[in-house]
């Protein structure tokens, strides 16, 4: 299993990378960390004529605080997110999820821009971008535009990028929440999720003032459950709340059967994880 022939381009600016994609006339592919693309090349499931390697572009790898947001450069590696004190302090759900992202050797190479562009419905970073309501900045022949994470993911392994656009930055709003949890079940540690949920809550005088809920592994894209958030806020909090929440969450999805798990099993996992996640989030709500 070896990649088919391609022309290799190593631009030093995003503009030059976009120009190389334009010149490839739809036959180009962007290489970031390569941890999803290289397997596709090795299997020859992808046979680009031109491979545009972003790794020589400086200034695309950073984690910065910008008032109420954290901005992350597209070439930032998973390992940098995993060990960033800023992420741990400001985006705790991301910090908790990062150790579930594949394995150390993959995290050393894989990038956030690459993970979002690959758009796997059971991958952590696409789910986190939806959870945090992130804004994705992309650059193409007509300059830059921004896309809301929920709009970005269209279908399994499919995003709304034009063929000549490249993800350059992702901005994550900081949630002023007090309790949160991230739960995931995979067949082996680091594999893609069979089911996963992230929950974050902000308590009010009675019940919850704000709630955030996102899922992955149970649909063709990561999901933000806006309705379930509202239903959770409307609930009176008692010891039956996690069970009721879990029933609401499961009612919102209808996962398909596939090689890895039946839809029913995924729903069973999701029910257990939802209950556990809300219990954890409520216990920590200060």
């Amino acid at each position, binding site marked *: 299993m070896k990649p088919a022939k391609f022309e290799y381009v190593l631009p030093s600016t995003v503009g030059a990378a976009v120009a190389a994609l334009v010149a490839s006339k739809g036959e180009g592919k962007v290489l970031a960390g390569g941890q999803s693309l290289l397997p596709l090349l090795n299997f020859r499931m992808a046979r680009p004529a031109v491979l545009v390697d972003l790794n020589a572009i400086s200034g695309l790898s950073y984690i910065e605080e910008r008032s109420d947001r954290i901005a992350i450069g597209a070439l930032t590696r998973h390992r940098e997110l995993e060990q960033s004190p800023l992420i741990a302090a400001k985006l705790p759900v991301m910090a908790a999820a990062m150790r579930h992202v594949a394995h150390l050797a*993959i995290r050393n190479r894989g990038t956030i821009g690459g993970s979002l562009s690959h758009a796997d419905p059971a991958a952590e970073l696409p789910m986190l971008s939806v959870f945090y309501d992130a804004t994705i900045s992309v650059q193409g022949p007509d300059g830059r535009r921004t896309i809301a994470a929920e709009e970005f993911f269209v279908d399994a392994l499919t995003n709304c990028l034009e063929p000549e656009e490249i993800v350059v930055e992702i901005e994550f709003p900081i949630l002023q929440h007090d309790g949160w949890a991230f739960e995931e079940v995979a067949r082996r540690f680091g594999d893609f999720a069979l089911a996963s949920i992230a929950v974050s809550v902000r308590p009010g005088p009675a019940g919850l003032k704000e709630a955030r809920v996102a899922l992955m592994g149970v649909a063709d894209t990561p999901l933000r459950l806006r309705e379930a958030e509202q239903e959770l806020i409307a609930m009176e909090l008692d010891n039956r709340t996690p069970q009721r929440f879990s029933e609401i969450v499961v009612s919102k999805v209808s996962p398909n059967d596939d090689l890895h798990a039946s839809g029913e099993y995924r729903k069973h996992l999701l029910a257990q994880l939802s209950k556990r996640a809300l219990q954890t989030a409520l216990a920590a709500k200060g």
Partner: protein
Amino acid sequence: MANVSVTVNGEVYDVSDVEPRLLLSDFLRDRLGLTGTHVGCEHGVCGACTVLVNGDSVRSCLLLAVQTHGAEITTVEGLGSPDQLNVLQAQFREHHGLQCGFCTPGMLMTGEDLLRKYPLATDEDIREGLSGNLCRCTGYQNIVAAIRSAAALRREEKP
């Protein structure tokens, strides 16, 4: 065709006529003759081909050789020699951490990076860390024991 200049196990190699599609794993084995790096699945699942690039463990089947131009690479040949095993290798021998030996180079290189980056205080941490490396002899118990022991020795060295 490209020229690739890399330092592997402290030795500088200037290699010309490298096809961009050549994987680092094949470059190490076929062009440099360093066959200690084993090629298993060739799509990033088994971990047998793990090497260190600029100190970080990577799957050499998921990296193009041209991407390592200017990099410093360590393969299993760079860890120690039969007469002078490094700490982790010695623990693999001590604990019988290998059976057929095919996965061993990847286990060692992954173990090196894990020992450097994580405290590995519990067996669960070690098993999580090794979850990206497959041993088809299923000899995991002794591999975990070897890494547990190496982690303890490192802690004694650097209290």
